[in-house]
């Protein structure tokens, strides 16, 4: 393996994409059936799960540093969504992870997981994986940054909450968390499909009921995107559901996009980046319990960009890099 992490570490073939899409659509069913197509949460290198042992980590990254970054993809995707053509050298693939490694010395790890499972379940799996990673990592870890795209950002929130409750050692090392197009208030498309299902079921017609049944086949992971991420508390059904709190010891950054040039354009307001809307951020700096525990300088809005482009755009990377460097200057 090469010394320097490269984008080929996270590139994936089309068969992996098919499997990821199927997991996103019906991943909870696959898991329940132990079908064989279900994906277990793991860190992947070159389309293979990375065993979390000292030897395997050293083989993957022969020169480990004390700074790690972990990437989480979105619904129906895999780590291949982070790879893109280097604009300065179009023949070469790169990724935010490879760039962060060469610019700031972060060792990148790319997670792959079953996006059809409930967010809380994936959050728990991520917390377990991070525990195992830290235990096996060959040098002491000083900094950990988490970067999640879309659903991945919500999984990060769940993992941080679960890790903080369990007093996992990695939680205190998380210095920054980046959410790229994450639907912290719920995704309108997921909500729309839910409403459509109910309407179709309520119409007394066999065809509309059939279409409603097809709509209703979506996985728990997709259903969880309807609303803000809630704490899973099976014991108290009567109590009002609480949103997952933000990790107070870390800095949080939001990257959003709009399809149009003008973020105040009607299309941008109604569609956002095509899948997730631009949230309205309160003017004052709120505490950890507020909807967004971040000030405006921790939020970047990119125009003329769609939801999937957020994982593979040099401008987005430049913003992440600037935030990382800015944090280091402050510290």
């Amino acid at each position, binding site marked *: 393996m090469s010394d320097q992490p490269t984008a080929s570490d996270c590139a994936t073939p089309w068969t992996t994409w098919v*499997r990821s899409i*199927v997991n996103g659509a*019906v991943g909870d069913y*696959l898991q329940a*059936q132990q*079908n*064989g*197509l*279900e994906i277990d949460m793991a860190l992947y290198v070159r389309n293979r799960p990375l065993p979390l042992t000292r030897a395997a980590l050293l083989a993957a990254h022969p020169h480990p540093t004390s700074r790690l970054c972990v990437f989480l993809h979105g619904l129906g995707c895999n780590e291949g969504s982070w790879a893109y053509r280097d604009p300065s050298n179009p023949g070469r693939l790169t990724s935010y992870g490879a760039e962060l490694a060469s610019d700031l010395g972060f060792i990148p790890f790319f997670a792959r997981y079953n996006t059809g499972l409930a967010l809380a379940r994936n959050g728990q799996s991520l917390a377990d994986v991070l525990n195992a990673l830290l235990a096996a990592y060959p040098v002491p870890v000083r900094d950990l940054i988490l970067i999640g795209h879309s659903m991945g950002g919500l999984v990060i929130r769940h993992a941080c909450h679960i890790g903080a409750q369990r007093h996992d050692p990695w939680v205190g090392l998380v210095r920054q968390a980046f959410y790229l197009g994450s639907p912290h208030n719920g995704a309108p498309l997921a909500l729309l499909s839910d409403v459509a299902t109910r309407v179709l079921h309520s119409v007394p017609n*066999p*065809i509309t*009921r*059939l279409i409603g*049944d*097809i709509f209703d086949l979506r996985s728990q992971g997709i259903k969880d995107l309807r609303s803000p991420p809630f704490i899973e508390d099976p014991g108290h059904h009567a109590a009002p559901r609480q949103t997952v709190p933000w990790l107070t010891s870390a800095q949080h950054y939001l990257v959003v996009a709009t399809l149009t040039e003008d973020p105040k354009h009607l299309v941008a307001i109604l569609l956002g980046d095509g899948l997730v809307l631009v949230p309205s951020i309160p003017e004052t700096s709120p505490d950890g319990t507020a909807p967004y525990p971040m000030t405006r300088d921790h939020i970047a809005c990119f125009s003329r960009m769609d939801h999937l482009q957020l994982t593979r755009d040099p401008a987005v990377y430049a913003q992440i890099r600037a935030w990382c460097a800015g944090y280091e200057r402050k510290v």
Partner: protein
Amino acid sequence: MEADTLRQLRGGVELAATAVEAATGAIAEAHQAIARQVYATFDYLGPLAAPARMVEQIQMTITIQVYRSIQVTSRLVAHGAVALLQSRERVDAQCSAPLPPSPRWGEEPNSLP
């Protein structure tokens, strides 16, 4: 072929068979419901109601059998494919199992010194 790939192929075949089964079942239900609506109008036509019910019964029986045969065929094909993949898995597992150590000269009870 790798064991993991075979396992995924098996999962894909099973998922496809389940999808065909579920889709056929849902379409059959919708088909029957629509047909029932058409035949229901004959109930108001007095003398035509009884023969219409008979035709409806025949049509429903044929319809159900057609959909069921699709389900059974798809399940049989899936079973066949899964059995083939499982036998391939067993062969691959035997091939990749380490060979027993060959007896060395002088270790067998009746070998020459």
